[in-house]
């Protein structure tokens, strides 16, 4: 949003200072993007999702100016991953970026992409959202990397994000697997100075002579799987030797060892100065877990404190199932909360340091201020119509989906009753209708519909499900900041008709305060129709409309990529 380039004078403390490469102030996300560019990627793919959106936004800005790399939004994370696989197959490097729940959508190409013979480097940057700032769960993507048996790098700051992405491309080509770079919100959305290194050239195209490694027929898949298992010791050897996994033993003390992963190291260091003794410390920034280093630390101490941002992934491994003499403290022992974001304050308490004093915070006249739909948002009009259409009915269900419109679950709208995963509204509505509920609405945004709503609509068409589907068409991906939808609004009507929705039960209406009555009437009529109905409620997101008008007046100022 606000690209900054800073030419810093000199760095104190470093030896021979030449006129170094241009330092840049980058978000963690942007550092990932720049790392990929400097690793010579040919292409980058993603679907917008907080907190990963800025990775592709940066690359799209860059490719608008420089003509490369190819950087584009995709229909969803699965298609994004598959496009990246295509780039890799012909020998070139590709980045695919997503938020943690996006990896669920991409799980199929992700898991099978681990089995194929990766050719050009393929890096998947996944941004987890501990604390659920803008997500529906707190899943930890390290489990996914583990399940796929691929390496994962976990940066703790922006510089590491840049460097690890570059390293991940090398590893991907070395081990012939996709490599994950795991981010978390607090890094993805934090800015600091990054010092880039000389960029690499783009790879030449080079299709493998033997394509059996990309053809997962059972006979070939068995070979590939065996081969992936055979590569595991090499990946472990990499991790054991990696400078990203640094072990520092304090020969004088044996009472405490601390293991940090990713961002947790920052919070540990933040409190470090106040510790009376220096605990032995292992930081894990590269996976598979460096087993020998962990064992070395464990053998040296009586107690281990495990600090991880995310789920207690490493801690669970350490505890195992059998009793052991070593004391292990972490999230599972209750020394740190299992949910929410890690903070310097929680880490402080886990280190037995007293909580910091602040000013008194009693009797604060403070009220909650939840996020709201923008004033004049078209969704408000659609919600008014939906509520009016079911008013007075004994029962009804309004299943919904993921986007700005999910805020319609809160007062004053209180219009929708579910939000599970991208596209779920349509399938859930069909299921509820088949279980006997009536009337049933599915409410979904245009971009969510294109992401994951088309396939369940096929099911609904095939069985003429007795539901009313309302597609909120605001011509944008609103919640992530107004990216373009993958197809223009004009494509929705022919798409829905092409799937086989009956033209008599397809209505395209304007979502406008003056036309709520009209929409209500149509909805009431379609509630009475026992079969599938679709209403497309159209009006552009006002934020997107504002920005469009602004840009039409004065063309966008250039970014500041150096």
């Amino acid at each position, binding site marked *: 949003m606000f690209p900054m380039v800073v030419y810093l004078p000199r760095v104190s403390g470093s030896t021979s200072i030449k006129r170094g490469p241009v330092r840049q102030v980058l978000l963690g996300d942007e550092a990932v993007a720049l790392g990929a560019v400097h690793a010579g990627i040919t292409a980058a793919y993603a679907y917008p999702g907080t907190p990963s959106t800025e990775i592709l936004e940066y690359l799209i800005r860059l490719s608008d100016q420089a003509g490369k790399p190819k950087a584009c939004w995709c229909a969803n994370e699965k298609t994004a991953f598959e496009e990246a696989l295509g780039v890799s197959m012909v020998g070139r490097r590709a980045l695919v970026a997503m938020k943690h729940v996006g990896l669920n959508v991409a799980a199929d190409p992700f898991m099978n992409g681990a089995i194929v013979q990766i050719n050009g480097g393929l890096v998947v940057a996944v941004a987890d959202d501990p604390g659920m700032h803008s997500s529906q769960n707190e899943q930890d993507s390290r489990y996914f990397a583990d399940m796929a048996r691929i390496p994962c790098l976990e940066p703790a700051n922006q510089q590491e994000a840049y460097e690890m992405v570059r390293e991940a491309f090398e590893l991907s080509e070395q081990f012939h697997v996709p490599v994950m770079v795991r981010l978390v919100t607090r890094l993805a959305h*934090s*800015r600091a100075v990054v010092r880039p290194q000389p960029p690499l050239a783009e790879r030449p195209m080079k299709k493998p002579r033997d394509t059996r490694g990309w053809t997962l027929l059972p006979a070939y898949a068995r070979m590939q799987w065996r081969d992936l298992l055979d590569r595991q010791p090499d990946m472990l050897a990499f991790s054991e030797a990696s400078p990203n996994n640094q072990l520092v033993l304090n020969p004088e003390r044996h009472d405490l060892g601390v293991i940090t992963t990713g961002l947790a190291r*920052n919070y540990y260091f933040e409190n470090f100065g106040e510790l009376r003794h220096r605990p032995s410390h292992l930081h894990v920034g590269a996976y598979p877990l460096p087993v020998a280093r962990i064992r070395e630390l464990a053998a040296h101490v009586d107690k281990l404190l495990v600090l991880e941002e995310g789920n207690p992934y490493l801690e669970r491994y350490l505890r195992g199932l059998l009793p052991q003499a070593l004391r292990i403290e972490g999230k599972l022992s209750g020394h740190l909360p299992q949910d929410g974001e890690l*903070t310097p304050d929680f880490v402080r308490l886990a280190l037995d340091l007293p909580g910091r004093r602040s000013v008194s915070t009693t*009797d604060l*006249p403070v009220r909650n*201020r939840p*996020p709201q739909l*923008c004033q004049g948002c078209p969704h408000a009009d659609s919600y008014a119509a939906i509520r009016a259409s079911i008013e007075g009915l004994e029962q009804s269900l309004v299943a919904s989906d993921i986007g700005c419109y999910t805020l319609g679950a809160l007062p004053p709208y209180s219009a929708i009753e579910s939000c599970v995963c991208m596209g779920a509204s349509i399938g859930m509505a069909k299921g509820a209708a088949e279980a006997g509920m009536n009337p049933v609405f599915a409410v979904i945004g245009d971009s969510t519909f294109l992401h994951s709503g088309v396939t369940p609509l096929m099911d609904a068409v095939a069985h003429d499900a007795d539901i009313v589907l309302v597609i909120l068409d605001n011509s944008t991906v609103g919640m992530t900041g107004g990216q373009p939808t993958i197809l223009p609004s004009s494509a929705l009507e022919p798409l829905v008709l092409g799937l086989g929705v009956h033209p008599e039960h397809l209505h395209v209406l304007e979502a406008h305060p003056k036309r709520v009555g009209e929409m209500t009437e149509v909805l009431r009529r379609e509630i009475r129709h026992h079969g599938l109905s679709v209403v497309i409620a159209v009006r552009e997101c006002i934020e997107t409309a504002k920005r469009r008008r602004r840009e039409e007046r004065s063309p966008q100022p250039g970014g500041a990529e150096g």
Partner: protein
Amino acid sequence: MKYDILLAGVGGQGLLSMAVIIASAAMKNGYFVKQSEVHGMSQRGGAVLANLRISDQPIHSDIIARGDADMILSLEIMEGLRYLDYLAADGTMLTSTGRVENIGDYPAQEEIVDRIQQLPHTCLVQADDLAKEAGTVLAGNMAMVGAASVFLPLEAEGLEIQIERLFRPKGGKVVETNLRAFRLGRNSLSCAAP
């Protein structure tokens, strides 16, 4: 030297531009800086928060620890109080008196002001009035940067350069208005300088 600022406000008030201006000026000065904010759902008229850390030593954590903020810089009268447990015992609460009443049950102004004035170091700024005087209600955030400049370990000139850089793409008039708001904010506090 370390200076931790917690910026508070309501989505749409221009919190991020404030953070960017102060952060860029600090970096130009050769300081280490980390600046973190939460995007997404919180942008829709909800409470927003940004962490800005400035130091002459490398900074580890992206977020400020409880009781560690040297300043809470708030664009809205109630929002600063929300994060009071982050303010150091001798920290400064610098807040606009402006109210964004997009929720029901909003506390009375006197109640909030009374509570703020119980704090050891407090400065209230009529940022909305200053912004109007500068030429646009939108410049309340720059009036607050101006007020904050009295306390920050940075020169006013460096901040002005960053304001100019940020707004230059929007034209000379916008730059002038925002600089005016900055100076009005700064002068409004000159009496309270530490």
